[in-house]
């Protein structure tokens, strides 16, 4: 087993719901409710789930955009809340960078590309401008934009190109871990493959670790070594990508896989291949009792609505379901 670069241990994030002039708290959105996972060095872990599952909330905690309600995040074995401010600036932040979903809003429209890509370097080093721009030129070459794009504004590029620029920015400080928040879902089909190939090439070249946030299982399968399936703020299944796809244990995982498969019309008649969930995602303000998935589960039992299932280890997989003892 390779080294663990990032570990989340039982992390919880609740948001208050406030109302009125006095901003009274009238409830809590339980966005993330006790999630643990590890990202291994040079490998990719994907957090997969539908909207409201809490994946983006997790990304925000790791990127230190918000603070956890409880739980710990360890980077290279050290609790990130125990870093001093200067250590954070020197050892943590530069090593954890991100590529966001929407290449149209992730860049300051009033900055030129060289300043967008160069910003991490400006902020974290004292290099003179021309040296930074030299680095930026190299980074842009590497992601296939070319140094001549440096002095243009982001809006002069297409979505795919902007996402390449975003990758260049994330790479500027030679980080250890990239948090990729739906990196291709805003792009056109023919462009997606370009970006995914680029990310994969960079990973092998620099031994990068990725934490991918995604809703599309097919995209994730191509990229990741292990996968964590999330539902309503909790992990329901977690394991190596190959094993999980071959032998999905949780009913929700099976439904997700079924929903992401290409199913030609002739095959669709074979209804055993398709799992269609009923109902809708419940509100994280008021999650269902017992197993959170029980309201939509196709294999629901009596116990499911009463007792909260434990995370159990089955072979190399972990699953949270009463069907497994």
């Amino acid at each position, binding site marked *: 087993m390779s080294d663990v670069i990032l570990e989340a241990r039982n992390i919880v994030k609740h948001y208050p719901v406030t109302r009125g002039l006095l901003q009274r708290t009238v409830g809590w959105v339980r966005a993330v409710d006790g999630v643990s996972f590890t990202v291994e060095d040079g490998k990719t872990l994907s957090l997969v789930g539908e909207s409201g599952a809490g994946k983006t909330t997790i990304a925000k905690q790791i990127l230190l955009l918000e603070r956890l309600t409880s739980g710990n995040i360890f980077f290279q074995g050290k609790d990130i809340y125990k870093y001093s401010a200067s250590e954070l600036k020197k050892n943590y932040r530069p090593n*954890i960078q991100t590529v966001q979903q929407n290449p149209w809003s992730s860049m300051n429209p009033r900055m030129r590309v060289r300043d967008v890509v160069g910003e991490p370097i400006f902020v974290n080093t004292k290099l003179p401008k021309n040296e930074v721009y030299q680095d930026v030129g190299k980074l842009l070459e590497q992601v296939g934009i070319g140094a001549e794009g440096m002095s243009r504004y982001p809006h002069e590029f297409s979505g795919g190109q902007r996402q390449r620029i975003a990758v260049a920015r994330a790479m500027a400080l030679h980080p250890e871990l990239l948090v990729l928040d739906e990196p291709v879902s805003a792009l056109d089909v023919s462009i997606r493959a370009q970006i995914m190939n680029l990310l994969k090439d960079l990973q092998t070249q620099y031994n990068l670790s990725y934490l991918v946030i995604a809703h599309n299982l097919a995209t994730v399968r191509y990229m990741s070594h292990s996968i964590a399936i999330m539902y309503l703020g909790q992990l329901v299944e977690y394991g190596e990508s190959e094993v999980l796809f071959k032998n999905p244990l949780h009913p929700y995982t099976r439904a997700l896989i079924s929903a992401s498969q290409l199913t030609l019309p002739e095959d669709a008649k074979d209804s055993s291949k398709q799992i269609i969930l009923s109902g809708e995602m419940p509100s994280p303000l008021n999650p269902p009792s017992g197993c959170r998935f029980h309201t939509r589960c196709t294999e629901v039992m009596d116990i499911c609505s009463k007792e909260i299932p434990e995370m159990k280890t089955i072979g190399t997989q972990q699953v949270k379901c009463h069907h497994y003892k």
Partner: protein
Amino acid sequence: MFGIGKKKAYTGLSRGTRIVRSLTLIIPSIVMVIMIIIALFANLGWIGLPDVGLAPHDPNSTNPRDKLLPPSFIEGGKSDYFLGTDRLGRDIFSRVLYGARVSLSVSLIVILITAVIGTILGILSGYKGGRTDAFIMRVTDVALSFPALLLAMLLWVAIGPGYWTVVLALSILGWAGYARMIRGESLRIRESDFVAQAQVVGASTWRIMFRHIFPNIVNSLIVIMTLQVGMMILAEAALSFLGLGITAPTPSWGSIVADGRSQLDRAWWISAFPGICIGLVVMAGNFLGDWIRDKLDPRLRQL
């Protein structure tokens, strides 16, 4: 029939429209520049130079022999008085030139004061959120719907008339428009992906404020400030017209219009010309504001 290929093709802007578009920039700019020159150089006494300037006469010197003369280009006018004289024989042209000074300076000072206060409160409200935000926005709502005229009257009664009473009356409520807009903008930008990105990179709050948030607000700020030039000139003119402005005999456009009211049947020119000046400046300001709004945003530049 759904006229296939028969309709005249819609080809966007014609050449004529484009020319009109560029004129809406050039003419207002010229008007503004002229007005600023007039305001600055109506006379030079105020900057310690010999008291000559653009104004041919002292705006307040009365001349009983030349009462109610029509403009020089109308029969009966004297070439000495380009826009005629009022009932005290004062030169309307000189009075209008001096009036530019009051209108422009009041509006400029008020805009600076209100923009600063409004921007600070707006950013505070948008950035802090929560109760601060709710409170500031409630106050803003009230300020936006409270008539500045009544405040001007109250101040007139309480601290007496004067230049600074006008400035104060317009400033006390004027910040609200800025606060509302800046709050919306900073709220939007604070939540934007690129600010999150800057935080991830480790950028300081200071850097985020000045490199990321402020540059994205400044456009809207400039646009509103430009559009406010007209609003403030109109407000000052209305106060002066009602007699709540700068005290006589200092000429201001609004008060000259009011002066001419009693002579309307005999000397229409007294009221007519200052009003035209107000209309010209305000229109120029509004056109410039619209033009700046269209141009300043680099996202629109590519179109």
